[in-house]
């Protein structure tokens, strides 16, 4: 019984078996074909619950039930190789564009896929993700993925000349300020749209640099147990760019 909500146990609780419902569903197109279904215009009476129920149904029938050994092993333990930082934008889920399967990537999603510098007072959320991924899960690659037409980067570019202030958003996107300053300084004649794309990419690099301010990231990279990668997904043109980062300490020279 939840302490938060009254009438919890008494609330009507529908229990439905996905399998039984499937037999009656003429519209079932399966997990892999769900994109086709979503491409059709939605009816004016969109039911969010039916939508997620359908999505779960497809997953269970087409994926979970077909690979019981895989999913039972996964239920005991996750051992993802990747920690991915991606934007919250609805169009750029790495699971969709990189066909990631459950178990492959521990994933953080936030506005403009940013990683702030190490700050125990303020950035516990991101810090917890990095700490858990490296210390508990021992991921091997951290992949920061930016994208085209990013609203967070656009907001960063507009600041401080904005009509409305959004306290939480503006505070968050300011993490990318070094990237913005650098791009503007280096491209004094660029148009806003050019600056936009340049800052999207520079912000990824800024986040990769910020990652190195976390001690366990630095240790992992120095010990060559951790790799850093950056990416940029351009959904306007259907491109993807990847950047690998090498971190090297050269041998000493006796003076």
């Amino acid at each position, binding site marked *: 019984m939840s302490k938060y909500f009254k009438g919890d146990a008494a609330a009507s609780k*529908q229990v439905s078996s*996905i399998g039984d419902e499937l037999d009656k569903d003429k519209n079932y197109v399966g997990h892999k074909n769900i994109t086709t279904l979503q491409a059709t215009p939605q009816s004016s009476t969109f039911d969010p*619950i039916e939508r997620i129920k359908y999505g779960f149904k497809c997953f269970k029938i087409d994926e979970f039930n077909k690979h019981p050994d895989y999913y039972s092993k996964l239920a005991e333990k996750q051992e993802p190789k990747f920690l991915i930082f991606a934007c*919250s934008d609805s169009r750029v889920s790495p*699971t969709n564009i990189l066909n990631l399967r459950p178990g492959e990537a521990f994933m953080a999603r936030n506005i403009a896929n940013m990683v702030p510098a190490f700050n125990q007072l303020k950035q516990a959320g991101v810090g917890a993700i990095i700490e858990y991924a490296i210390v508990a899960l021992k991921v091997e690659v951290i992949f920061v993925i930016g994208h085209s037409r990013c609203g967070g980067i656009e907001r960063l570019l507009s600041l401080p000349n904005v009509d409305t202030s959004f306290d939480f958003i503006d505070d968050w996107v300011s993490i990318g300020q070094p990237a913005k300053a650098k791009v503007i300084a280096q491209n004094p004649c660029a148009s806003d749209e050019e600056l936009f794309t340049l800052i999207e990419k520079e912000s990824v690099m800024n986040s990769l640099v910020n990652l190195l301010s976390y001690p366990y990231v630095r240790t992992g990279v120095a010990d060559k147990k951790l790799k850093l990668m950056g990416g940029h997904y351009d959904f306007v043109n259907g491109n993807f760019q990847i*950047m690998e980062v090498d971190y090297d300490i050269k041998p000493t020279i006796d003076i």
Partner: protein
Amino acid sequence: MRLASRLVHSLQKQPFLHTIAVSLLGSSPAYRSNFLKSSASTSTISGSKLKFSEIEQTKLGFLRSSKSSLALRLKASREGVGLVQETKENPPKLITKSDDGIDSFAEMKHRFLSFKQQIYLENLERYQSLAEAQAPKFMVISCADSRVCPSYILGFQPGEAFVVRNVANLVPPFENGPCETNAALEFSVNTLEVENILVTGHSCCGGIRALMSMEDEEKSSSFIKNWVIVGKEARSNTKATTFNLSFDQQCTHCEKESINNSLMNLLTYPWVKERVAKGLLSIHGGYYNFVDCTYEKWTLDSSSEQETSGYAIKNREFWS
């Protein structure tokens, strides 16, 4: 510390940037601000698709680091990127840590190209429309756990759900100040004007386990502890009601109680509460049990708010 950063892909180990591009002939529609919400409109792009293997070369400048022997340098890899050679469908290999031989770089490339061929190009009109503006109906707050991606288990396709993922799918209250979760909340509610917020938790959550294992009010140098303490009220509720259960059972209870804690924290944001009161925004909780693949969901009954007893929930369903 001066740092050099380079974007480099090379076929012949030269510092040029190669992008694998599909160029669409004809003019692109004029860009509309993504941050200011605009209704998604369809624009047709005339022209034909060029061959998939066409490559654009772009030379980018780069910074050089200091030559000091102790200088730390960031340099991008010069590793070659193979040209598109897969035209037939190759099912992607699962990347696991035991597969040391799999080059992450190459695998990601392969995955993207498969997506592009099989999905992006097959649904080009839809993707071009999405490129103009997103109008998702959901905001989803989910755990970062690799097993519970909402795109996968709930089948969200591009354009459908604005997603925040953090440890233990927590929503801190308004008074905690800015963080990545409430920045995303502010954007999705005020700018995208989503109609639904779903906080979705799951079984065997490491973050909740850490919360349950912590000593009370411990000031810690651990980020995890400093974050999951957001759920401390859920923990105390759990311990009060389930003291006779095993630790594992208590954690399961806390996983669900924490979702409710987050739903209540959502209402501490005035713009969330306002939209809920007006019937423009619905708030849902969800719980994915990946041991037996079941999903439980419930909805906040916004009409039920009373001063003394708080909110009720409605429409609880259990899918198995």
